[in-house]
């Protein structure tokens, strides 16, 4: 029962990433695309944590941590570049 509910949550998160892709393709300015990138990263962290429970490995949580840290740095660098103050 728990596995079925967690699989449903995984499917919902994948669908939300696919909807975010619409804004990434369509968005007018580049800040819109950076926001879409940020949302995809945060949703991917939740997805990796649920996958770690479904596959039963704790080491996947470390990957989620590295993932969040580096994408945070990337978003900061992109924003500084767009602001012309890098």
């Amino acid at each position, binding site marked *: 029962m728990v596995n079925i509910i967690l699989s449903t949550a995984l499917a919902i998160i994948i669908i939300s*990433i696919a909807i975010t892709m619409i804004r*990434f393709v369509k968005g007018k300015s580049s800040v819109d695309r950076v926001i879409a990138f940020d949302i995809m990263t945060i949703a991917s962290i939740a997805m990796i944590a649920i996958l770690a429970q479904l596959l039963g490995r704790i080491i996947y949580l470390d*990957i989620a941590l590295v*993932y969040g840290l580096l994408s945070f*740095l*990337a978003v900061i660098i992109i924003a500084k570049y767009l602001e012309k103050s890098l």
Partner: protein
Amino acid sequence: MSYLLIISILLGIIMLAMAGIAIYHKSQVVAIIAAGALGLFASVMYLLLSAPDVAMTEAAIGSGLSTIIFFYVLNRIRTTDEKEEQQLKK
């Protein structure tokens, strides 16, 4: 195991769209962001193929570090371009 297959197919479609944007978009900034997102989803795909070490390396190098280095270099190029334009105006 079938739901993992469906997730892999959806991730593959998203990765194909990201690669198309990274190749065909006009703006350099958007192309670099799309390449970074491609690296992120490639990392999740490696994780589905049960290779956590490769996934960690891909998330560190392919998504984070390459994006940061690309934007650093773009910033340097932009400043030198602006200086040359100012010198040409004088």
